[in-house]
């Protein structure tokens, strides 16, 4: 059919729907409840089988990299919350670590322990959220309710620490702003003691569930080569046969001092990824128990510092600001003009719950980053759908999107 172009109908509306074959083009999203946010998938179908998939993203694009270029470093911290908003402290941390590496800061030990606690709580929250939503997509309502109940408890702990439940901004460049509250450890321990039984509940409900197995096993198989080529990281990569966890391989904070295992599988299917999340929750709990002991040791040794001492970059403690003139002047300059890291480039990757979260910063010595590139794992976990979906059937799309664990805050940034 000839298309008539005129001034009234822009080109993107001139789509011809007459096709000669039986191929049906199905628009999945952007408002589909199991698209986990704003994912639009254009699926070319032969009967119910997908022959071509074209993920379309950008519905949540806020231009964070552009925003970063026009903000002082500390100002950007709350914006990172809005990337992977399921585990926002992990983003805060990735950014803080990148800037610390750039200016060469050493963070006090007590702050490191608190950061590790926050990171692992965030990992648990993220994995519980993943389990709940994916199970709900597949139809397992009970698991959804159970997992959200546990996540709620963790959010209460976080809320007690920083006052926010979702967008924490709980980490600062150079340390953490606050010590943990008195009830933190007790609350966390109560949760951790119950967690193994909770995880067992989920597994009892799912592991031998015929519907769950049919939707998960041998569906969405990603080969090792495909995972590496598509830049998959985190559970996506570990389920495909690469035991790669940045906490083990390039230890940051005190991860080299704690005992934990890196679960991995060579199956590469949905079920393998589901197992990764379950096992990682157990490992996180293990790490959290150890950080509680590390924190107790910090208290015992009288290590009270929470922020690094670097007057050129980091404001002095509140007490100094309120009592000493020079600290107040320094603070004023750092808040109004911002710190000016040295000229140079840095790429720092951390293991966020979704995978490798990287921050590339090019500093030209100014108060604003000259270029900041956010490497969000979900971006490529969405891209892989192009190659992963063809050959699968429509119901598989839902379970595959579920197990990729994509969050559109960080896909679109």
């Amino acid at each position, binding site marked *: 059919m000839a298309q008539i172009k005129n001034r009234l109908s822009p080109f993107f509306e001139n789509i011809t729907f007459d096709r000669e074959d039986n191929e049906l083009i199905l628009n999945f999203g952007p408002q589909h409840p199991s698209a986990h946010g704003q994912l639009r998938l254009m699926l070319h179908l032969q009967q119910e089988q997908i022959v071509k998939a074209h993920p379309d993203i950008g519905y949540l694009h806020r231009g964070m990299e552009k925003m970063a270029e026009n903000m002082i470093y500390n100002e950007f911290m709350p914006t990172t919350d809005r990337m992977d908003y399921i585990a926002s402290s992990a983003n805060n941390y990735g950014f803080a670590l990148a800037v610390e590496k750039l200016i060469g800061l050493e963070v006090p030990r007590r702050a490191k322990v608190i950061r590790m606690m926050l990171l692992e709580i965030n990992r648990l929250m993220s994995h519980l959220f993943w389990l709940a939503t994916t199970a709900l997509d597949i139809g397992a309502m009970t698991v959804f309710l159970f997992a959200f109940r546990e996540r709620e408890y963790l959010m209460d702990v976080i809320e007690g620490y920083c006052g926010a439940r979702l967008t924490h901004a709980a980490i600062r460049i150079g340390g953490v702003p606050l010590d943990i509250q008195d009830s933190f450890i007790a609350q966390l321990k109560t949760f951790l003691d119950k967690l193994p039984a909770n995880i067992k509940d989920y597994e009892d409900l799912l592991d031998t569930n015929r519907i769950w197995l049919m939707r998960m096993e041998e569906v969405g198989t990603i080969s090792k080569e495909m995972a*590496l080529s598509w830049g998959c990281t985190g559970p996506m990569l570990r389920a495909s046969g690469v035991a790669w966890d940045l906490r083990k391989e390039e230890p940051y904070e005190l991860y080299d001092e704690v005992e934990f295992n890196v679960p991995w599988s060579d199956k590469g299917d949905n079920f393998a990824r589901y197992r990764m999340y379950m096992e990682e929750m157990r490992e996180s709990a293990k790490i959290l128990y150890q950080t509680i002991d590390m924190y107790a040791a910090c208290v015992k040794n009288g290590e009270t510092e929470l922020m690094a001492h670097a007057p050129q970059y980091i404001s002095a403690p509140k007490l100094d600001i309120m009592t000493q003139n020079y600290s107040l002047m320094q603070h004023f300059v750092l808040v109004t003009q911002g710190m000016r890291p040295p000229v*140079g480039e*840095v790429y720092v990757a951390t293991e966020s719950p979704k995978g490798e979260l990287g921050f590339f910063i*090019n500093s030209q*010595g100014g108060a604003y980053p000259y270029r900041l590139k956010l490497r969000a794992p979900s971006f490529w976990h969405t891209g892989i759908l192009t190659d992963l979906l063809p050959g699968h059937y429509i119901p598989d799309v839902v379970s595959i999107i579920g197990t990729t664990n994509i969050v559109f805050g960080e896909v679109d940034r």
Partner: protein
Amino acid sequence: MRAYKPKDNVQRKPYYTDRYWKAPQVAKFEVESDEVFATDLAAIKAKFEVSDAFIQVQQMTVWIHPSDIYAVLEFMRDELSYTQLSEMSAIDFLAQRDEFEIFYQMLSMTKRKRIRIKYSIKNGAAVDSVSKLFRCADWSEREMFDMFGIQANGHEFMKRILLPYDWQGHPLLKTYPLQGDEFAAWYEVDKIYGKEAREEIGPEIRDTSTIDRYDSERFSRLGHEVPKGTKITGDEPAHKESYQEDGGVFLITKLDRDNSKVIDDPQR
């Protein structure tokens, strides 16, 4: 006189910079200080032209010639076991030297090392696509095109990825404005009726609190509609209009016009 604002970089500037401020440098180290990097660099140097190489924050940066990029990455992937392309993008240095810097962040899982491959291209030049080597570059290059307008030769689908296809401009350029376009309200009018119709049609009024009650064309007289173009003096009787079918809609109670209250105070 208005303050001079450079057009080639419209990004925000710090309001004050000490005129004697000289930015320090992140320490650069010789590549020889790290054994693994030294071997890798020697292997790359044996086959390709390397203009600069150094270690910064535990990672090696290697500057190469733009035309070598595909071969270098292929060599690194197959011979040096840098199997993952973590990230790639560009940095805008158009204002300083009319160039983009392109970087590729490579990771070797067996050596646990990261190398950054970099090169510069002139404004308007295209890069060679590496999406045949690494599938993830497919999306990265599209994002780079979207944000900077840098084309990748040999890419199968060089279209915008995050922004709509009909978007104007490339947001991560330093010339891209930070504020919205104040003339955007006119574009629809221009496209459909032409620029000359601007005066006749007038600007679009989006603020509901400024609706003109004498306007008979823009639904500003709900409940008091008059035929289009009527000269409104202000003393017409309220025109009761029914919007529902005679039988009414299933499940919805019929609106009783006579016994209902019309709220005409916008500040209520």
